[in-house]
């Protein structure tokens, strides 16, 4: 189906999120929609899929003007959107989630739906059990479920918003194969991303938005440099990696056994030294979060022990607050759900994290503190801005600004997930500053480049197995990718035996 947008404009208050945007996507095309955070990609896609109504402008499908007021209208017209966080129902069974959007009689025909679900998943080589519950699926599998559901409802235009965030490399490859197959069958695919490599690997055209405006469209072959310039208006400097000296032990994890909901990990050994960065790589849900949260006392190991500092203080079985007192900080990936408090201002967050003394709040002192931190971390917000009013990148900066000083160990889940290149570089700059002062960092990332670029050593997780710490300098994308996919593990053991 051919999708045409004509003069789409959408404002939120004074902000022009979409400013007179027009472009046409021919059928059988995978169109990349590129732009940094806040460029207006998501708004435009939400207009196309009926979540927002445009202030002005038209949508044309196969040359005919259509009116799309709700997501239900959109899917009736054949437009389905896969959201960054899958819009599914975690407490439901897969098959029930699958048939939810269907128009139909009083009683759902589960048998037929189940048969069609299996046929569809076989077509794309997905392996989801229709009788399992949605909350037991990985993010990648939930995406697959959403894609199947949208196809089943008759989608002929598929919009994907940042689909490669939070899924592993093999899941990404499978997703790309699926999308290419769908495009070959005549489907139009709009692929929203800020990852150039994904767009280069998948798309046949790329359209770039910046500050709500359409900057241009590029056909294959893409000139990376030109695309970056279109996105950011300037070339991003690449940070060079400096070799740090190994400091004292800050964390010693000995033979850690962990029991997760769906995953068991046995016998992880890891010594973290002051000033070093350790990356935890692996498919989403391979046990990295389980291990990282155990390092902070947020979950308890069933075997082994955690010791902190060079004095080897045994912290096994202690709560996160005990770890925190010893200079450990944990930064969750779900910023507004697990790390910040919607409704409270930046100032109030700083007061809470500082653990100020006294009974009554010293407003003046608190505001001064907030102002200095906001300036120091370059947060776009005022002391009285509530955290939910900040953009994702600024929320992440606030999270960094909230960390106390000094810290021995920072544990971070996906430090730059969903952030644009500029914020990513900024966040890592701040983290590296901490390292230079002797703080160790352990982080999880699904982004292989991020793992390779910033880690000194890497632990790879695969289905509950964990590699010994590998020197990042001995790894490249290919080798890391193979390990994450469960390959070469025998070689690793042989190497270890010889070492």
């Amino acid at each position, binding site marked *: 189906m051919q999708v045409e947008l004509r003069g789409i404009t959408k*404002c939120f208050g004074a902000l022009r999120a979409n400013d007179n945007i027009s472009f046409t996507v021919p059928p059988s095309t995978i169109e990349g929609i590129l732009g940094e955070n806040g460029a207006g990609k998501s708004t435009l896609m939400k207009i196309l899929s009926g979540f927002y109504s445009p202030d002005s402008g038209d949508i044309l499908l196969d040359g005919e003007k259509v009116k799309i007021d709700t997501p239900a209208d959109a899917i009736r017209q054949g437009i389905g959107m896969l959201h960054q966080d899958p819009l599914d129902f975690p407490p439901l069974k897969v098959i029930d989630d699958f048939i939810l959007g269907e128009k139909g009689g009083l009683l759902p025909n589960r048998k037929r739906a189940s048969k069609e679900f299996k046929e569809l998943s076989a077509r794309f080589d997905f392996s989801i059990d229709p009788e399992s519950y949605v909350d037991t699926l990985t993010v990648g599998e939930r995406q697959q479920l959403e894609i199947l559901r949208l196809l089943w409802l008759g989608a002929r235009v598929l919009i994907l918003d940042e689909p490669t965030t939070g899924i592993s490399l093999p899941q990404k490859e499978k997703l790309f194969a699926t999308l290419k197959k769908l495009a070959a069958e005549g489907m139009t695919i709009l692929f929203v991303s800020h990852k150039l490599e994904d767009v280069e690997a998948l798309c046949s055209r790329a359209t770039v938005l910046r500050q709500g405006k359409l900057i241009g469209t590029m056909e294959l072959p893409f000139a990376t440099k030109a695309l970056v310039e279109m996105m950011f208006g300037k070339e991003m400097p690449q940070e060079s990696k400096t070799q740090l000296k190994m400091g004292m032990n800050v964390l010693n994890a000995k033979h850690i056994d962990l029991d997760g909901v769906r995953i068991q990990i046995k016998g992880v050994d890891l010594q973290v030294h002051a000033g070093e960065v350790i990356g935890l790589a692996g498919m989403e849900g391979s046990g990295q979060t389980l291990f990282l949260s155990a390092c902070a006392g947020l979950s308890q190991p069933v075997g082994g022990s955690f010791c902190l500092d060079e004095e080897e203080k045994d912290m096994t079985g202690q709560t996160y607050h005990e770890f925190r007192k010893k200079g450990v900080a944990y930064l969750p990936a779900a910023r507004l759900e697990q790390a910040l408090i919607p409704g409270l201002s930046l100032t109030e967050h700083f007061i809470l994290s500082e653990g100020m003394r006294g009974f009554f709040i010293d407003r003046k002192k608190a505001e001064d503190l907030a102002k200095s931190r906001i300036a120091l971390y370059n947060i776009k917000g005022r002391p009285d801005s509530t955290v939910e009013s900040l953009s994702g990148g600024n929320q992440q900066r606030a999270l960094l600004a909230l960390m106390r000083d000094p810290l021995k160990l920072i544990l971070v889940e996906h430090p730059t997930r969903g952030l644009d290149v500029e914020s990513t570089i900024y966040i890592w700059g701040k983290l590296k500053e901490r390292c230079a002062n002797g703080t160790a960092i352990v982080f999880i990332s699904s982004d292989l480049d991020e793992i390779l670029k910033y880690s000194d050593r890497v632990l790879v997780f695969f289905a509950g197995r964990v590699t010994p710490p590998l020197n990042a300098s001995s790894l490249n994308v290919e080798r890391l990718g193979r390990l994450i996919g469960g390959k070469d593990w025998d070689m690793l053991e042989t190497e270890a035996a010889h070492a």
Partner: protein
Amino acid sequence: MRDTRTNRILFQIGAILFALIVTTLVLSLAGAQPFAAYKYIMLGAVGSWDVVSNVLVSWVPLLLATSGLLVTFTVGLWNIGIEGQITLGAIFTTWAMRLLQDSGWNPSLILVIAVLAGMLGGTLWALLAGALKTFGGVNEIFGGLGLNFVATALNIWLIFGPWKRPGVASMSGTLPFDRSLWMPIAAGSSRLTPATLVIAIVGIIAVYATIEGTYFGLKLKAVGRNPKSAYILGIPTWQHMMASFAICGVFAGLAGAVQVTAVYHRLIPSISSGYGYLGLMVAMLVGYKASLAAPVALFFAALNVGSIQLPIILKLDSSLAGVLQGTLVLFVILGQGVRTKLLKKTKVSS
């Protein structure tokens, strides 16, 4: 529509008008003269120094209950068990008074001990609801509701059992305490007790200062809005929930103690007088803001007292005050909902 102070106030006024219209309709349907009813409610609430002092007598326990509830609402808890906590406060107060009434101690000392006992009773009952939630995973609404029934049953059992009047047990409660053990009444009034008035006013000021000005209050807010993030920020979450239960229990217990020492001078079956539920309504009506609690509670107390005369003068049931209070809360919350929706719409379409 923009988010301004003016339209916020306009919406509040609109809500009050709607509540009046609905109540007027209810009255008309019942065949009564609405304006006569309103007139007598007003006269019944402010017509004489005596009724005004009655309003204040009713205001004290209501404001105490509301003050406590503001603390639990701040931490995100629905302490519906406050009714039982008031009852337990009354029971503990009565218990202390019964133990000490023949001791020959200074009556003031006995009253102080009795009030402290009431605070203890309310706190223990609140902590029980808190423990059920924290350690038993029982939602505080269900736990509180269950404990309310237990408290009522305990109260009735005491009145008709161990603490019954000499001779025959009665719904009118236990034998009244000696006049020397009543809270001192203000000169020129039949019931107003200045001491309890001071307690209630100091209480709401303390709650306001705590929530708005202290680190503890900010931590309560943080836990109430997002316990997970609060924990990551280093705030002990369940401890703060328990603390807020305890504080609410103190206030509920105080309300119960006031009912026994200053209002009824004995234990009666409906000793809580529904002030817990009414306090929930006041807290909702003021949007959980401590600054507005005192005047709104006073208004509710005035409605309650004002409608007492209705059955006699207009042959109307005095539950009319409840109708007015209920519709008021409903329309104010509805108004807030509609306003939020309109604001959102403006945000999207402008």
